[in-house]
């Protein structure tokens, strides 16, 4: 069944097009660009289909190609629109700490079973919501670092940010995401 599909690239679009498009949209929040990336992914897969060894599923292979395309896309738009916009993120942590750097909104205790949590579609939807609430540049810094698992240095190069700003942005993103999940998930589930 899978083998037949390898031979029929047009069936790939029906089988995997939506899943690839949704992931691309989740990452870059631009429907037109996401469509283009899906098209490029399928074309690259068609060109490389002889090298597809069948060790992974077809979908895994396609996602692997798409993930690289997404990183290239983010690199390209960062080159075209280099911006540090650190000001946009500078005040984000003000609600968390007072002037002395003491906790203002204290982290609550989370009780969770990761095994169960990861099975819940609602949890992944909440994670997507919290990521979408991050300012776009923070979202990119954080997802390149933690989803694509690139090194902090690679991320800074792709987005053209200084080491200091890159560090500040990662800190802000981690704190905001922690807080968002706490407010919208862990507080409500306890």
């Amino acid at each position, binding site marked *: 069944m899978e083998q037949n599909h390898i031979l029929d690239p047009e069936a790939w679009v*029906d089988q995997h097009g939506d*899943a690839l498009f949704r992931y691309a949209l989740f990452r870059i929040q631009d429907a037109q660009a996401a469509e283009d990336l899906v*098209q490029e992914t399928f*074309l690259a897969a068609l060109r490389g289909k002889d090298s597809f060894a069948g060790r992974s599923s077809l979908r895994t292979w396609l996602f692997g190609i798409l993930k690289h395309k997404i990183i290239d896309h983010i690199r390209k738009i960062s080159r075209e629109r280099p911006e540090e916009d650190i000001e946009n993120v500078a005040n984000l942590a003000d609600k968390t700490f007072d002037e002395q750097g003491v906790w203002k909104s204290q982290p609550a205790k989370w009780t969770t079973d990761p095994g169960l949590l990861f099975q819940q579609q609602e949890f992944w939807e909440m994670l*997507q919501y919290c990521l979408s609430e991050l300012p776009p540049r923070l979202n990119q810094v954080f997802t390149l670092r933690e989803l694509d698992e690139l090194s902090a240095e690679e991320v800074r190069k792709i987005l053209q940010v200084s080491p200091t700003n890159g*560090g500040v942005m990662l800190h802000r993103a981690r704190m905001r*995401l922690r807080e968002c999940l706490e407010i919208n998930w862990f507080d409500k589930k306890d």
Partner: protein
Amino acid sequence: MFSCKQATELMSVSLDSKLSLYQRFSLRFHLLMCKLCSRCWQQMLFVRDVMHKCSERAEEIDFMPDHSLSPEACERIKNSLREHKNT
């Protein structure tokens, strides 16, 4: 001793690079003394694990379930595949 805000900054740095011996010691000491920072640190690690899991399971998770490729986009992509298949 540094503030809780500085402690969280150091926690974040430690997830991206190796801390100096002094930084490591200071952070560990702060975490021993401060229940809230210690909790925040565990949660920061948890969020990182969640992100890695999300990446690992990208093909199974229903991202943006309300969106799909438009019929026009599907057709356009199929056409381009057809063209390239024949070249």
